[in-house]
């Protein structure tokens, strides 16, 4: 019973973190038709910035969180302006470039703090909330609530603002949007900053919980790709639903069976979705 409750809490937290990372990936695919393999590394950079600001510089954790979002958003903007813009008509080229960015960011993290260093970030909410048999560490609760809050803000941005309408118009039909006077370049930069900032925020939120290492982005990006394929590539709602389904499944299988088996099962689910349901839960596949 105790394990079941703990696993439920962990599943909820994993869902929240995965959703934050995956919606950014889905957003970029929707707007720019680019699969960003470096997205997991933006999550990693977020965790590193949080560590640097809050532990190394000794400042507040929340300043670290803000710093993480700012730094990753700037990296996102730089990727769009310096790299993707030059290869606009070549999605495969952009995909390959993101692999290059992935390797550069990983090596950057190694140069910054060493390959095997132990980096610790103190949570601003230590301790545990106890309700009967339920143990709820405050920081995990904070991660879940913050992720839900951020997603609400993102959905409000996309649904209710002029900027959001522009983003959705570009995602639906690039040429038509351009004919309406929407600047593709400006929307792309903004979308890239949003997407990267969300990944950075996820890294900052998880920094006190996970082990910070230069390679921490790899399992995350694999999970995120499984999730956005399940949810339908480019669909933000699909990514959120698939994050909850997949993370809950994964957490339970790795707690009760084994984490390698859970990964194999996840990969098989992704293959099955690709074969039998290429549109995913909510998306529209291009051409399979």
């Amino acid at each position: 019973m105790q394990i079941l409750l703990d696993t439920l809490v962990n599943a909820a937290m994993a869902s929240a973190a995965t959703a934050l990372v995956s919606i950014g990936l889905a957003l970029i695919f929707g707007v720019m038709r680019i699969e960003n393999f470096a997205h997991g590394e933006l999550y990693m950079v977020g965790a590193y910035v949080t560590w640097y600001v809050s532990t190394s510089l000794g400042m507040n954790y929340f300043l670290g969180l803000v710093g993480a979002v700012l730094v990753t958003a700037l990296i996102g903007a730089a990727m769009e302006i310096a790299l993707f813009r030059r290869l606009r008509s070549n999605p495969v080229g952009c995909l390959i470039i993101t692999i290059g960015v992935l390797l550069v960011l990983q090596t950057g993290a190694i140069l910054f703090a060493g390959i095997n260093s132990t980096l610790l970030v103190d949570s601003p909410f230590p301790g545990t909330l106890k309700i009967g048999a339920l143990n709820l560490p405050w920081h995990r609760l904070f991660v879940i609530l913050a992720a839900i809050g951020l997603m609400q803000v993102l959905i409000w941005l996309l649904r209710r603002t002029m900027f959001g309408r522009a983003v959705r118009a570009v995602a639906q039909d690039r040429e038509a949007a351009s004919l309406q006077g929407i600047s593709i370049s400006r929307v792309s930069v903004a979308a890239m900053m949003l997407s990267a900032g969300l990944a950075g925020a996820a890294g900052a939120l998880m920094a006190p919980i996970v082990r910070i290492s230069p390679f921490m982005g790899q399992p995350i990006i694999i999970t995120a790709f499984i999730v956005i394929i399940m949810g339908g590539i480019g669909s933000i709602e699909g990514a959120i639903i698939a994050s909850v389904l997949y993370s809950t499944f994964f957490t339970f299988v790795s707690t009760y069976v084994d984490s390698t088996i859970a990964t194999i099962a996840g990969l098989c689910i992704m293959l099955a979705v690709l074969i039998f349901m290429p549109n995913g839960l909510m998306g529209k596949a291009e051409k399979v």
Partner: protein
Amino acid sequence: MRSPGIVMAVALLVAAALLPAVTGDYYTAFGTEIAITVLMLSSYRIIVLTGEWSFAHVVLQGVGAYTAAILVKDLDWPFPVTLAAGAAMAALVAALLSYPLLRMKGFYFLMGSFAAAEAIRLLWRKIPFFGGTRGLSNIPAPYLEIGDFSIDFGDPAHFYHLSLGVVACCLFVMWRMEQARVGGIWRAIQQQDVLAQTVGIESRTYRRLAFVVAAAFAGIAGVLLVYAFGSVTPNRFNLNFALYLMIWAIVGGTRTFYGVVLGGVVLMIFDESLRFAEELRPGIYGLILIGVMLFWPQGLEKLLMPLTRLLGNRARRSDPA
């Protein structure tokens, strides 16, 4: 003397065969690694010819490697048989995977090939029969004995010559295939998939064929790898190696047959010269990859173009751009 290309190829092969005579064991063993890598890159190029990028190629090499390791350790089968078995097993696995995978294209194929390959690799880690995370080791080198005459391929120079011979034969077969009708069809599919179908080419069948043929050669490369290192571990076939194979193919260039061979040799030597900066290596590759994609999409090959023209091979289109 049919063409200057063949003469040049034979001359290069003879020059390569002289390597153990001029260097020590370390660089001879490195020469074996170069030969294996060239075989991997050339076979990967077959898939690239049809216009796809795959993450499964390295794991298919692993299928060949594990097949040979198990046959040698448990059944003590001789080298030529394990070589054939490794190739056949890799081709068989690829043939099975090709049914679901080649219904996909582009990004979907890339992710599908990753999912299938990673699942296979994790199974190797999980199943004790394959040695778990530590893999299989203590694989004896091939040994040839006919009457009084015997060769011990545990000697790096002998094994190098054996690998070079096997790789040269494979390259020749691949070269002939590319010159043949099937090679033309692969290129046609890459350039004009729909048009190829309208003139009656079953494009999915030919893409599947390319995937399986490439896997057979990757399997051979895997068998050579097992004997060269005497061991096989699942980590040798992880995503990083798949990424590196892709990077090398892009940086080296995939337009011409000779280009990918020469590119492979140059990049292996470059890679070795980076050994002093092991931790920085991924970042350096990342920067090179970005630079090549932005400024030089034809890759190293362009640098080698005058040389390839000398080899009498007309440039063929199959760049990633």
